[in-house]
């Protein structure tokens, strides 16, 4: 593919990038922000961490939508994941003893499994009982907003958990001392590294394996897949359950993988990351690696506030810099809104027997 071809096919992507660059330049000029001090290894590290929960949910949601089910409930599954991760680790540790690394891993696994089970219910409702995918997805969000803080109250007597430790970094001797890359990848949370590997693996599975082709066919042309003797709904069950599991894992990563426990006030600590995950895979044009990079973009937006504070830019108050990721989502959606969604998304499939 020549550069010209690439540019023609990715017009919107380039447009968005250009718009964001212009916006950034304007902000830099207006507020005299010292750019060189903004882009530090620490900033990159925080952005990758912020991107990780979003990317996990995005990769799962991408698979579900590719196969024809719009899992708009990602935000809800992430809330359950964040809560159950913290709850799982807390319960595994027992009432008195401190939470250990092993307990945290138990929490992560418990959250992933529990959210996969919830996604089974969601899948049965949307696939077998043909529930409206948008309304059922909203319901998952409401359930998360209600039962998340409720369960926290039952366990801890308040909507948030006490402060919990998080998963230790994996430090590779020698390599960790390499400048920049060492700190980013060889002294990093295993969850951050796992997510990068997952993005690549998800790309390979989706575009290079038979199962990946089934997933794509289930969303684009379910009749053909059915004719070829593959059960369309079985493929969709698999992807929806995977999306619930990944969103739950992403939520648990947020609360105990990288964070310090569950916060259930307001719209909970997930705070729109599930919705941003949907935009991330749309922006990535249903490509898992693209979705990861888009998550990184939103993650760096999220971290911009801390960076601006460290370089001493006080003119833009935190209440506004907090909104950068949401504004970025709007810009992205407006410019790439026409992302081609799979032809049969939202349509229950019935075999013709």
């Amino acid at each position, binding site marked *: 593919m020549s550069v010209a071809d690439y540019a023609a096919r990715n017009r919107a992507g380039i447009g968005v990038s250009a718009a964001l660059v212009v916006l950034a330049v304007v902000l830099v000029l207006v507020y005299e922000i010292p750019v060189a001090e903004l882009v530090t290894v620490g900033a990159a590290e925080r952005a990758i961490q912020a991107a990780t929960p979003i990317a996990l949910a995005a990769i799962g949601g991408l698979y579900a939508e590719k196969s024809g089910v719009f899992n708009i409930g990602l935000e809800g599954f992430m809330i359950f994941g964040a809560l159950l991760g913290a709850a799982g680790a807390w319960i595994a540790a027992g009432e008195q003893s401190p939470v250990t690394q092993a307990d945290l891993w138990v929490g992560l696994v418990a959250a992933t499994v529990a959210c996969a089970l919830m996604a089974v219910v969601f899948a049965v409702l949307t696939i077998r009982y*043909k529930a409206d995918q*948008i*309304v059922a997805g909203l*319901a998952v969000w409401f*359930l998360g907003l209600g039962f998340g803080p409720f369960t926290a109250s039952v366990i801890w007597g308040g909507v948030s958990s006490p402060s919990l430790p998080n998963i230790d970094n994996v430090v590779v001797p020698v390599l960790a001392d390499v400048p920049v890359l060492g700190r980013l990848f060889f002294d990093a949370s295993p969850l951050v590294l796992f997510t990068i590997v997952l993005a690549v693996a998800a790309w390979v599975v989706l575009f290079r394996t038979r199962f990946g082709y089934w997933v794509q066919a289930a969303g684009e042309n379910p009749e053909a897949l059915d004719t070829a003797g593959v059960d369309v709904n079985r493929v969709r069950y698999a992807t929806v359950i995977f999306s619930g599991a990944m969103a739950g894992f992403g939520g648990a990563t947020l609360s105990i993988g990288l964070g310090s426990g569950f916060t259930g006030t307001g719209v909970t600590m997930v705070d729109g990351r599930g919705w941003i995950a949907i935009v991330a895979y749309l922006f990535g044009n249903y490509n898992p690696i693209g979705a990861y990079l888009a998550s990184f973009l939103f993650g760096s937006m999220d971290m911009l506030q801390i960076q601006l504070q460290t370089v001493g830019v006080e003119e833009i108050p935190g209440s506004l810099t907090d*909104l950068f990721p949401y504004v970025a*989502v709007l810009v992205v959606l407006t410019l790439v809104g026409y992302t081609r969604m799979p032809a049969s998304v939202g349509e229950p499939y019935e075999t013709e027997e």
Partner: protein
Amino acid sequence: MSGADTDGARAFLDRAADRMVDATAIERIAIGFASTALALALGSVIVAATGYDAVEFVTSLVDGAVGSESNIAFTLRQSSMLILAGVAVAIAFRAGVFNIGVQGQFVVGGFATSLTILYFAPHLPEGTTGGVLLMALGAIAAMLAGGAYAALPGLMKAYADANEVITTIMLNFIASGVVYFLIDEYLRPAGTSAPNTERFPEYVELPRVVFDSPSFSVVGLGVALAAVVLVAVFMSRTRLGYDLVTSGHQQSAAAYSGVDPGRTVVTTMVLSGMVAGLAGAVFAVMILGYYSDPSTFPTFGFDAIAVSLLAANSPVGVVPAGLLFGGLDAGGQYIGFTTDVPSELVDGVVGLIVLFVAAPELFRMAGKRAWLGGDRE
């Protein structure tokens, strides 16, 4: 390529809307009742399973909703807000546009009311006349602001094909953040630390008739019911209303009859946002009497989604659904004060209701099994 895509997206909405209006009226009412009953039953089971007293839960819930005159006033206050916000949601959902941004439009509308009242109060006579004038101006400002804020995602959907579920949710976050910033930075009276505006003048309040409550007036409920009637008449008796509903029901048919789909989406969003803005005005005047950090507000705009869905997006149906949810809300808060059961449980029950309403097929199949002797499909 772009043309085929919008068709795909439209067909998707068509199908979604079709399924929603598939059910007959009686069936919809039955599904509403069944969903609510099942959700409450499940809620009680969860209460019992987590070691609380389920009987106490249910009796407190009912007691909190209708147990005393002040509880009834509180229920009606919540219901007024939910009916108004529910109508805003219903307009959009009816027309096949998923406006999840009613909360944000509500926040912006209430803020516009507050600005208007605080700005014009020194220029108008004091007393009842001035109060009525200020409230009228405030309501108009709220509807303009709510409509304009909702036009944004409408335009983005109509002309850039941006999914409105996501854009409206992002705009909710942005509305809340920006309003907080403006109040904290510019409207907070000197020497105070809470992010509140000044209080409105005393004469800016709805009359206390029937119920002597500082935060509920029958006039507020009257405004909500008037909005219901206006919207119901508009949807069923005017050409524009008919076009909107047809677009929601079957976009291709509407397009053939000469309706511009892009303009319909924007009109729908503006109307929906205007009603949401009005809800904000009632909230600012009747309940608060000043304006504050929106992240501390009740989430009427989200609960209204459940209200509208339970009412099968019928403006008239929003009234009983709004009363029910007002009662659930009041009862839920009462539970939080009077029992050990965490009040968040009621939010979960609302989620269950939405989940069941989303899957009418579940009840149809269950109904078939129960009444037709368990024959397999």
